């Protein structure tokens, strides 16, 4: 294992987004908080999704998870695509780094990005709204593994894409709508049966629902089931991205 090499790539990736933290942490936090203010103002008195929890409070975990999903994906996909575009990927390919080392570095950096975005939103929300955490360990498990799933997916998309539009398209037409429709703003049981079934094949639903359970001890499906699904997605996407890195598709051809 080239641990120092892995660590170098990881810190470079973290450094890369911290250097432009207004865009990479600030902007997502502001978006999430705007959703919180607007939706909560508009709906506060009309909706109660979970027993004993105001709509405003209900929204917070879902918004945090949605931002973590989007940002973890953006971190690895945009970094890889950029280094392909400007050609600096060659420096990484010349280095004695294995597929698993590349994978670990990119995915860990995506986790850090997701985690920091989530933290910023939580802390700012917490200043205005009283929101406690019921199960800290579950919060951490869902945050880390959901970010890891999206980090691995972003890695794959970043490696396979050859143009910026492909990554942007994936982000705008897949990640964004799927994360919006994952039960961030409602309980899926408020939906017609067909859309309930559709929601249940959306991986992001399990991330949001389980994450919300960690705060309120209430959820649409059992948190154990959600965590299991997150692990399944994590395993599948990790295997797929490792396979791609090992064979050097679109990188060493």
């Amino acid at each position: 294992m080239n641990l120092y090499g892995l660590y170098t790539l990881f810190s470079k990736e973290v450094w890369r987004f911290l250097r432009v933290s207004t865009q990479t942490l600030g902007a997502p936090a502001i978006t999430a908080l705007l959703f919180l203010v607007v939706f909560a103002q508009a709906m506060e008195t009309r909706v109660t999704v979970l027993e004993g929890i105001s709509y405003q409070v209900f929204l917070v975990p879902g918004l945090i998870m949605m931002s973590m999903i989007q940002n973890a994906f953006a971190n690895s996909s945009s970094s890889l695509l950029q280094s392909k575009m400007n050609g600096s990927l060659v420096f990484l390919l010349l280095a004695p780094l294995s597929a698993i080392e590349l994978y670990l570095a990119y995915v860990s950096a995506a986790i850090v990005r997701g985690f920091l975005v989530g933290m910023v939103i939580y802390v700012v929300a917490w200043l205005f709204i009283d929101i406690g955490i019921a199960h800290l360990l579950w919060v951490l498990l869902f945050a880390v593994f959901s970010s890891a799933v999206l980090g691995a997916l972003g890695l794959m998309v970043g490696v396979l894409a050859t143009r910026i539009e492909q990554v942007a398209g994936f982000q705008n037409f897949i990640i964004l709508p799927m994360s919006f429709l994952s039960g961030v703003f409602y309980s899926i049981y408020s939906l017609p049966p067909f859309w309930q079934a559709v929601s249940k094949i959306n991986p992001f639903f399990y991330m949001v629902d389980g994450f919300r359970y960690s705060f309120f001890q209430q959820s649409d499906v059992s948190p154990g089931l959600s965590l299991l699904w997150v692990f399944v997605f994590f395993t599948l996407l990790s295997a797929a991205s490792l396979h791609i890195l090992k064979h050097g598709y679109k990188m060493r051809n």
Partner: protein
Amino acid sequence: MSAVSIHSLHKHYPGVHALNNVDLTIPQGEFFGLLGPNGAGKTTLISVMAGLTRATSGEVSVMGFDVVKQYRQARQHLGVVPQEVVFDPFFTVGEMLRIQSGYFGLGRSNRAWIEELLETLHLTSKMNTRMRALSGGMKRRVLIAQALVHRPAVLVLDEPTAGVDVELRKILWQFTTKLHQEGHTIILTTHYLEEAEALCNQIAIINQGEVVALDSKQGLLARNPYRMLRVTVSEAPEKLPERLVPLLHEQKDTDFTFRLHRKDDPIADVLHALRHAGVEIMDLHIGEPTLESVFLTLTE
């Protein structure tokens, strides 16, 4: 053990046979020239050596390590200066070098070497400059420093002097010569033939993916048996001696250039024939064959 050894190497791209059964052994300590016209397959060959491209078939090893199966060791021993000037605009020169050094598992202990590299390549003052703010020539120097950051035994430079100003070219020549003297194996691709002639002892010429010549510089030059003799005379004769007519290559006023075969046309014969015809010789110049003429015959 050789620095680089290549066996039956093939590389197909869709519709292009970029490398066709290449066999090449580059001994350690060589200053090796890889010549060939554009599209010959030089960059592809380097990419396979560096693990940037997978070969279709065949084997390549660097310092005895297979570039696919033992890629870690192979890459530790190889430094590559890419043909294109590529860079990460995010980072400064110093950061780029520390990051590259880190990829190779080298931490603080390598800082002194990085500083030395910056010094030698006259980059010290640019240490904290972002890559995007550097001129093209400066960026190329950084590429060279990056390739050397892990002290590789074998250094490959892919057309390092293409589009480079005279001053930088001189620095590069001195620097690579120094590295060679220190024991590095240098592999240089270039399309400036005088550059290869000045620097390389061993030369391979590739054309359309095949090695068409592999020889020492002297050996290659000897393949061209002709040399040029330019004679300046005081007054052009009415008629050239019969014997010299087929040898005449060019005439400009009182300058006669003869194309002479090393064995069959001794210079003394020409001079003798001229004097015999009463021609007074003012000046002489002998042009040895250049790599260019050999190159052109081999890649036509």
